[in-house]
């Protein structure tokens, strides 16, 4: 199952027969792309080159890297698939479970354990490989080639993970429980390692020449892999397949890559795509407009494909079916949607290679793009507005300044000032006071970690609340309540049919004491399905604009509005018995359609 209505058009093709022979089934990830068989074939080629071959690292090590990277991404599809693959390779279930739970404590050889710890760290963050990483790996006897292979395996995990999310592919096997992500708050980021791999500048290398046809030059993250020609060959085949596939045009695909690089903080890639787009006729101001649209929350600028790519890279966990519906509403064909997803996922693949291999940009980034890129880096995962808020309009600006200048005590003022509001948002999301208090702590810890990069594009309180919402939504997903967020239980076109239609008392608030009133309202709100409750809490209790509610929850504005309405009407139903006189003068009757 996936968002696209792909049945099994290509299921009897020789390509899929190969799967059936090897695995006994065709993974849903590839079935969902059946309209683009050449792309699927190239993806499999890359998977075979990077993972299925025994090179410096063993197949088992590489499969484990994929599993750990998938776990770090919290990608249910990939984790379930890897779990199965590793069992097919004869690795006992308890060991696979141990790797998922804590790879440093899974009874592995020290070199493999170190490699997997590195994978977990690297896949979780967006920062580059550090000198400390390289030193730890070298001490375990792992060569530069081994590190390069590990990075390629991380990249392919990200690639496949993005496709699975972009196309909404349901796992082939029962999803596995993932460890608590709260332990994953990143520690200090070491500075990037010195360049590990030097690019091959040999113009005669025919393999490298193939990349020039797509980019006008050989991107550093490809030429740095010149010692792994089997991987380069597979990468070039994938590029060829994507760019030859006839759904979207080349400009669209290069724009998608531009968006994926910008969202991934990939300066080198961004600089390259800037020149590719200009060489294809885009003006600098057109490119700047695209880039600023990608760093704003509003995505009504017409850059549908590019905004999709940016969201897939930046915040994949929040992408829902709405995105594919938006494509369909724009008249995009299945083939085009698959191409968009795969191209954006290729961008994600390159982003991992780029940060792993520490490639320096060939030419400096234009200042406008540099500025947008830096804002992006500072605001990862946080809603940002396109216009700067004047400091004097933000009541918290003095304390924010103080914290940014190293005065930790000033943060306590912010905690006391906003704690109750953050708590209210979280209890509305999570429905449980203990958990809300925990999540509130996480929210402030994250805010403290990132306040150095807070750029005042929104008020501090809005920024803080968006971190709170992210934290709450993340917890809902972890406890597998996420269907409630992503899919509304009854978003059919049926109109909501009111049942309680006795008139309410004129002044209902006088009927109860304040404490009773509060208890009645809290009970009513808690009785709502969480997908409605969340929207209602953010809009009606926290009074956020509906646009912020929608973007905070990864919903379209119309979906947010429709949930808000249902939430309000359901709450009205729940409260009615308390506020409508038992024997009212208005007889209860059904509303007629």
């Amino acid at each position: 199952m996936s968002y696209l209505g792909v049945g099994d058009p290509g299921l009897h093709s020789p390509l899929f027969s190969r799967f059936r022979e090897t695995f006994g089934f065709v993974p849903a990830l590839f079935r969902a792309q059946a309209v683009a068989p050449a792309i699927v074939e190239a993806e499999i080629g890359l998977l075979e080159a990077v993972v299925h071959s025994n090179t410096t690292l063993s197949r088992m090590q590489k499969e484990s890297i994929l599993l750990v990277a998938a776990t770090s991404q919290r990608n249910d599809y990939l984790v379930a698939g890897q779990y199965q693959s590793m069992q097919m390779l004869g690795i006992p279930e308890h060991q696979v479970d141990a790797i998922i739970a804590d790879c440093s404590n899974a009874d592995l050889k020290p070199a493999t354990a170190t490699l997997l710890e590195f994978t977990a760290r690297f896949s979780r963050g967006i920062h580059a490989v550090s000198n400390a990483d390289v030193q730890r790996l070298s001490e375990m006897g792992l060569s530069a080639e081994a590190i390069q292979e590990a990075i390629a395996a991380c990249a392919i995990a990200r690639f496949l993970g993005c496709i699975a999310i972009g196309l909404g592919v349901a796992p082939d096997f029962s999803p596995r429980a993932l460890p608590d992500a709260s332990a994953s708050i990143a520690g200090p980021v070491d500075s990037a390692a010195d360049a590990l791999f030097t690019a091959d500048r040999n113009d005669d290398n025919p393999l490298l020449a193939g990349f020039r046809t797509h980019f006008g030059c050989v991107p550093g993250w490809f030429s740095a892999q010149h010692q792994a020609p089997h991987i380069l060959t597979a990468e070039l085949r994938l590029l060829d397949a994507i760019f030859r596939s006839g759904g979207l045009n080349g400009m669209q695909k290069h724009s998608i890559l531009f968006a994926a690089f910008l969202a991934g903080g990939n300066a080198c890639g961004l600089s390259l795509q800037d020149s590719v787009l200009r060489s294809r006729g885009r003006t600098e101001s057109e490119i700047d407009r695209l880039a600023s649209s990608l760093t704003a929350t509003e995505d009504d600028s017409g850059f549908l494909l590019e905004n999709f790519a940016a969201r897939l890279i930046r915040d994949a966990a929040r992408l829902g079916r709405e995105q594919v519906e938006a494509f369909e509403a724009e008249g995009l064909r299945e083939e085009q949607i698959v191409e968009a997803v795969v191209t954006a996922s290729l961008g994600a693949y390159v982003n991992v290679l780029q940060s792993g291999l520490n490639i320096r940009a060939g030419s400096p980034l234009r200042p406008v793009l540099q500025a947008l890129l830096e804002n992006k880096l500072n605001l990862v995962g946080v809603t940002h507005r396109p216009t700067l808020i004047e400091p004097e309009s933000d009541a918290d600006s003095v304390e924010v300044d103080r914290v940014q200048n190293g005065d930790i005590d000033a943060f306590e003022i912010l905690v006391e000032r906003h704690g109750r509001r953050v708590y209210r948002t979280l209890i509305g999301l999570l429905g449980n006071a203990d958990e809300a208090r925990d999540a509130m702590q996480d929210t402030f810890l994250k805010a403290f970690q990132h306040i150095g990069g807070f750029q005042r594009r929104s008020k501090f309180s809005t920024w803080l609340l968006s971190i709170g919402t992210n934290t709450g939504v993340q917890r809902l997903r972890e406890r597998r309540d996420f269907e409630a967020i992503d899919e509304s239980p009854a978003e059919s076109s049926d109109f909501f049919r009111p049942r309680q239609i006795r008139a309410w008392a004129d002044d209902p608030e006088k009927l109860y004491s304040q404490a009773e009133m509060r208890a009645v309202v809290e009970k009513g709100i808690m009785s709502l399905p969480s997908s409605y409750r969340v929207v209602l809490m953010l809009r009606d209790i926290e009074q956020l604009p509906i646009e912020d509610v929608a973007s905070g929850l990864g919903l379209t504005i119309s979906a947010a509005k429709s949930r808000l309405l249902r939430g309000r009407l359901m709450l009205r139903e729940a409260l009615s018995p308390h506020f409508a006189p038992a024997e009212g003068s208005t007889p209860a009757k059904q509303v007629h359609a």
Partner: protein
Amino acid sequence: MIACADFMAEIGDYLDGAVAAEVRKQLEEHLAHCQSCTVVVDSTRKTLKIITDAGSFDLPQPMLKPIAAEIMSRIREPRK
């Protein structure tokens, strides 16, 4: 004259004052004749007022203090 179902389809925007004048006129004509929808609009408005005023899910100040202290101690001693 619009039916209750048509009215309910617009009620969200109507409550938020976000319908065009033409549509608003039609909706209000419906309300003038439909007791049920009038009750729904009135009680939904009251619902919104109640939930805004009720202080729902408020964390009492005495409970905020220890949580704030815990957050600050985790910030000051991250290894704790």
